């Protein structure tokens, strides 16, 4: 199995993602420059966090037109696993690979803090090693992570169990108090309808090493490698 970490101008979490795949999962991983278009040989494409193109116009709005994105769309449409974190989530929404959009945090603050995430759906290639209802501690770092979709879209993603993570209390309680940015239904991460594209605002790649205070993020990366292992064996 081989992972690809896409690097746009302004991406900043690429090295963290690379580190997790290389040093924690011990799996092959390569950087993919945003002008590259050949994704042959890759099994999972990660769009890391950052401020691609300076967040100009709207977060992710320009990055979605980078040459690599046409290939990422084809890769996703063919069933490949695509995983967008933070700015990567914003890019996936702007490109239409995921429904909805991330808007300015309702309190206007940039929030860099630990959050608790309740895993809503463990029947996903990205959470297969976790249990539904499990709460993990993962940091956020964003100013525009307020998930928004029109009510019809929201109903649909709820009905299809596309919500994978919700912001919660450490005990798993979903309420306004434990919503760090105003996201509808406390949504922190969703998949597409088919389930092979995941976007989330929190940064699990920043909590896969005991040195960083938590290894709760590992379960996501281990789920992905487990899924790929099953697919390729």
């Amino acid at each position, binding site marked *: 199995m081989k992972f690809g970490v896409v690097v746009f101008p302004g991406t900043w979490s690429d090295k963290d993602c690379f580190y997790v795949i290389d040093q924690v999962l011990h799996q092959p991983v390569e950087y993919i420059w945003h002008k590259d278009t050949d994704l042959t040989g890759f099994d999972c494409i990660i769009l890391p966090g950052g401020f691609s193109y300076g967040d100009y*116009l*709207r977060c992710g*709005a*320009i990055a979605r*037109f980078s040459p690599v994105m046409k290939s990422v769309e084809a890769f996703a449409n063919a069933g490949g696993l695509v995983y967008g974190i933070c700015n990567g989530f914003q890019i996936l929404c*702007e490109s239409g690979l995921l429904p*909805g*959009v991330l*808007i*300015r*945090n*309702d*309190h*206007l603050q940039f929030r860099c803090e630990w959050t608790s995430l309740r895993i809503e759906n463990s029947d996903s290639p990205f959470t297969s090693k976790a249990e539904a209802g499990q709460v993990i501690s993962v940091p956020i770092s964003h100013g525009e992570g307020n998930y*928004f*979709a*029109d009510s019809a879209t929201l109903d649909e993603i709820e009905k299809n169990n596309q919500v994978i993570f919700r912001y919660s209390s450490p005990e798993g309680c979903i309420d306004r108090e434990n919503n760090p940015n*105003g996201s509808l239904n406390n949504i922190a991460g969703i998949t597409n309808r088919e389930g092979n594209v995941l976007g989330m605002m929190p940064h699990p790649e920043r909590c896969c090493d005991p040195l960083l205070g938590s290894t709760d993020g590992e379960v996501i990366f281990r789920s992905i490698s487990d899924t790929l292992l099953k697919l390729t064996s």
Partner: protein
Amino acid sequence: MKFKAEIFISLKPTVSDPQGMTIAEGLKQLGFESIDDVRAGKFIELSLNAKTISECNDVIADMCERLLANPIIENYRFEITPADR
């Protein structure tokens, strides 16, 4: 012909606008008590070449749909004026 387009992008009324609300608070603190509501948006000015104003219209609408605005959360309108004398 050269044209100038002025494009106004605003959040849809159903999307909350914390920036606008914060501006409203600031204005109230300055004493502008009459403030009812503030919505903040984007203004983009661009110049382009087109054969006719209607062609220009189509091109700008396409730009708005595909990049300048996100139709999930934003509305747009624009004004086109000939830039040639």
